[in-house]
């Protein structure tokens, strides 16, 4: 098995990895904000429910969540899941929204009440204050924790192989069971490069947001 063949196969797996990553980010970033508002809601039942949801999702392994999302519908309701990738994305989006929601909550609660009051004094509505004054400050503050979580996601995508989705590690492991070990370490370089790109991206973003320093 030549270096080139291995690279091609790993590249194929890497595309699946990126696919899971991008879909998860696109959906869990907004969903996390919704969950964050839910858990900060003044309406008690809603906030208790949301916090229980966050507790369950953060309190159980993502691997287990993937298995449940994929296998449970068939076993309990006799409607087998059609799409492996679909199940993976659903499980990842749910999981990451829970984590993101807590980061958002921390960010939102870190903004002093004075700013809201000042906005009101100037005659702005509540939503105007939030979107025009508060939001970007929050983004600036939560960026480091966000980059942490996002980079964790890059590596968590490897859990998709538990329901036989052909992501990067799975492709590498197929070589290992053929008696070739180095593709597994080679796969590590793909992750490393990807998270390197993300690190640079987040660094750049942080600089751009310096204006909003509180």
């Amino acid at each position, binding site marked *: 098995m030549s270096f080139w063949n291995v690279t091609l196969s790993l590249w194929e797996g890497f595309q699946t990895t990126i696919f899971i990553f991008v879909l998860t980010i696109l959906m869990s970033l907004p969903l996390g904000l919704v969950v964050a508002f839910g858990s900060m809601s003044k309406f008690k039942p809603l906030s208790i429910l949301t916090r229980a949801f966050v507790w369950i999702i953060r309190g159980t392994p993502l691997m287990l969540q993937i298995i449940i999302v*994929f*296998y449970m*519908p*068939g076993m309990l309701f006799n409607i087998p899941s059609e799409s*492996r990738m679909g199940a993976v994305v659903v499980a990842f989006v749910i999981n990451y929204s829970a984590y993101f929601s807590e980061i958002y909550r921390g960010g939102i609660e870190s903004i002093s009440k004075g700013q809201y009051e000042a906005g009101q004094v100037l005659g702005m509505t509540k939503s105007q204050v939030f979107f025009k004054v508060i939001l970007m400050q929050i983004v600036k503050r939560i960026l480091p924790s966000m980059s942490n979580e996002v980079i964790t996601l890059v590596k968590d995508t490897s859990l998709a192989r538990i329901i*036989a989705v052909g992501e990067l590690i799975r492709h590498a492991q197929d070589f*290992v*069971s*053929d008696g070739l070990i180095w593709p597994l370490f080679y796969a590590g370089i793909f992750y490393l490069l990807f998270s390197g790109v993300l690190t640079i991206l987040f660094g750049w973003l942080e600089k751009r947001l310096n204006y909003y320093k509180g």
Partner: protein
Amino acid sequence: MKKTTKALSLFFALLMVVLSFAACSSSKEDWEYIENRKKMVIGYTLFQPMNYKDDDGKLVGFDTEFAEAVCAELAITPEFVQINWDTKTTELKSKKIDAIWNGFTVTEERKKEFDFSVPYVVNKQVAVVKKERADEFKTIENLATAKLTAETKSAGESAIQGDEKLKDADYISVEFQTDALLEVKSGTSDVAVIDYTMAKSMLSEGSDYSDLMIVEGLELSPEEYAVGFRKDSPVTLEKVNAAIETLAESGKLGEIAAKYNLGEELADNLK
């Protein structure tokens, strides 16, 4: 600064020496290595009825007891280590384990990488489906249009890929044979191709898989189980094979097989 360089070069020199020693010992005869350590590290995965934990959490199973008996004959201690089936080759080559003793199927391809003991159990691959859908899957032709699943690189997978009619079927490989059963149970796949010995033991009454069944009269590629050792370890092979023969003659092997309901599957020359 100079001191650091010196220390570093000394360190590397030492490292080289250690590495070259390691290289030497790995070329030494395998048996000598095992005998010197007075133990054989046996790699297994949980696989009923070969290696599994009983109600008290003790590792039992046909292969477990068989390995213990062989090691007793050889006056060494067996040490059981749970491995990841995907990386078994690496584990063995890197001497993390000394043997793969886990219902290990002999194939031509594997013979290039492992030294095999005498085959001790004859197994076959069977198709497992949901009981309620038994009528849909009676012949090979039925299977060809179904969603198939098997363990990655398992004998079940080769049975599918080696079959003229099945090789183009919709197939997905999973990490473990039990995952294949889970796929069928949840309906995400229609048919699992797994070992007969395992199917018989997993689908029994009281198991969560008792709503599954083996398709009658449909046998895919019979196979043989043997113990896998590092390539080029003739003395180890010789010793283990002799011990197996002694156990067969004394009737001990038959006893263990009967205990795990494998009496019929035992290789003919060892019965």
